[in-house]
């Protein structure tokens, strides 16, 4: 009987088509990218360590958003989710950035000597810990395994999003079934490769340190920030009137609940990592936090506790906050900002012990990668339907949530 009802209403959902970006907005993105790239190149020439760390940080930030879009998509497929059908295509669009991840990684390969102390044989020799780790932490293996990971993300992402887009034409439910299997494979491979990538690109900056929770810490940041970005894009498209009659307060409420839940998840993981290291009190583990609790870094550590946990927690706690596009938008932007600061907190203390350096190179990196990210994602949304219009779950989601 629910089926019969769904059929009655499927004709009522009007395909909003694609999102044709105004040329002025595209101009802004291109301007951001050009200014950012010039600024980043200048920073790398003038102050190599600062420039390379800014590049690495912003590369990782936007790489995580692109992967987060794919991860959110996969989760919806494997759980057979209904609520998310109207916004899933927006999450899929983030994966349009993945080819740039390859370019970004290749550029980072040029900066390996500036970023990773384990790449210098004179530092490794005579240091028993680093000598022991050298069979894993060496340039050749580093480049190969990261290229493999990027290839896995790109190929699975293209297949996954390709199936979803192909369904727009004929509405064949077989694409959903295929993506369900594909998503299961992606989630397993993603867990392994993203852990590896975060260990390689972030944790190995201090090659002595290790934390068995670092991968899931990076993942917690990835998930909250990509949910925030998905919320931002959804609200922007809603305000443009493109999602009218498809996305309503109930879908925003769901996105808000998701962000709220994973704000807590981040705090849980971040505290667990800290508590285990604090409790065991082993010098080779505690130094990571010693660097970050001293001097200028103390303020950033406190900011993360407040900005990444308490502020979004209390901002998203009331029901009304999760159903109000304006408030949700502000919190989502704040979460993205806090994630960016978190990456500064992870990366910079390895180079600048005195305190954080947030200035021209970091902002230039944000403009460069952010401009390119927006260009790639809006190009995808400009050439594909912004809603998976023939998804078997769409009518149910629009109707079920439409009260």
């Amino acid at each position, binding site marked *: 009987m629910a089926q019969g009802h769904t059929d009655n209403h499927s004709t009522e959902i009007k395909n909003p088509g694609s999102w044709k970006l105004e040329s002025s907005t595209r101009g802004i993105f291109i301007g951001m990218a050009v200014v950012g790239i010039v600024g980043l190149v200048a920073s790398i020439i003038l102050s190599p360590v600062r420039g390379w760390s800014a590049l690495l940080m912003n590369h990782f930030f936007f790489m995580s958003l692109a992967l987060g879009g794919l991860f959110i998509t996969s989760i919806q497929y494997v759980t057979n989710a209904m609520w998310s059908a109207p916004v899933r295509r927006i999450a899929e669009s983030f994966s349009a950035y993945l080819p740039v991840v390859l370019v970004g990684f290749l550029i980072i390969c040029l900066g390996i000597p500036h970023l990773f102390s384990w790449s210098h044989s004179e530092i490794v020799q005579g240091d028993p810990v680093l000598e022991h780790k050298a069979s894993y932490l060496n340039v050749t293996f580093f480049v190969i395994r990261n290229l493999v990971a990027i290839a896995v993300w790109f190929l699975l992402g293209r297949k996954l999003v390709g199936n979803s887009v192909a369904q727009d034409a004929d509405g064949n439910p077989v694409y959903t079934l295929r993506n369900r299997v594909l998503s299961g494979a992606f989630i397993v491979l993603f867990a392994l490769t993203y852990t590896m990538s975060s260990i390689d690109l972030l944790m190995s900056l201090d090659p002595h340190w290790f934390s068995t929770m670092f991968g899931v810490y990076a993942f917690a940041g990835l998930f909250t920030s990509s949910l925030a970005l998905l919320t931002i894009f959804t609200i922007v498209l809603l305000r443009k009137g493109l999602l009218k009659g498809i996305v309503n307060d109930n879908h925003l409420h769901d996105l808000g609940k998701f962000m709220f839940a994973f704000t807590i998840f981040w705090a849980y993981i971040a*505290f667990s990592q800290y508590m285990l290291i604090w409790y065991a009190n082993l010098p080779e583990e505690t130094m990571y936090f010693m660097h970050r609790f001293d001097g200028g870094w103390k303020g950033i550590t406190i900011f993360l506790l407040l900005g990444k946990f308490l502020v979004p927690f209390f901002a998203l706690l009331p029901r009304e906050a999760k159903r109000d596009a304006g408030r949700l938008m502000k919190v989502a932007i704040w979460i993205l900002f806090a994630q960016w600061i978190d990456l500064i907190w992870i990366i910079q203390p390895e180079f600048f012990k005195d305190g954080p350096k947030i200035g021209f190179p970091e902002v230039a990196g944000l403009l460069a990668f952010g401009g390119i990210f927006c260009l790639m994602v809006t190009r995808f949304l400009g050439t594909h339907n912004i809603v998976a219009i023939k998804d078997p779950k769409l009518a149910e989601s629009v109707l*079920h949530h439409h*009260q």
Partner: protein
Amino acid sequence: MGDPSVYTPVTKTAKAPVLAGVVGFFENPQSLMEATKKLREANYQSFDAFSPFPIHGLEKAQGLKRSALPFVTMGAGLTGFMCAVLLQGWTSVVSWPLNVGGKPYWSWPAFVPIFFELTVLFAGLATVAGMLIVNGLPNLNKRAFDNNITRDRFALMIDAPKLKTAEELGDMDDDEILKYRTRLAKFKAFEESEAKSFLTNLGAIDVKAVEQRGWFE
């Protein structure tokens, strides 16, 4: 056929049945939803909707206000948190300070798991208890009028208002009677046959009157 008196059923000396209300059954969640909206507009004193599974937006169609339960959860959670702070602070700092690995007595990172656990425990138990109280459960004076409303039937019930008997009215003074009458006058008057035909007009496929019956009656 023999003596007809053999077939005479034994009559129980039960108290006179009291009308609880009139129930209409609906075919699917959508027709229940439409009917609920119209029933609300009709302004009966009290009615309720029944479904085997939660229907999004039904509470809105019924015009139900948001429950105060979240505040119970919040209050109990904060109480649990404070209890954990006092319990651990008092035992490890005041009552019996122990040096563990050279760490301070007030080693808050070690206490955080208990902060969390007691917050969740208090909040969880209080929410369940509060839910039962808010819903007036368990209610031994009411029994399901049709077991199928937990399986595949959707129903609306217009409750028969509890009217005062002539005796009770006799005991009240004029002011109280006036208050009682004005309150009744705010709602559409309930009358069994009228309520039945009203539900039929809303699209109910089956309509019946329900008598008040407790669990052990």
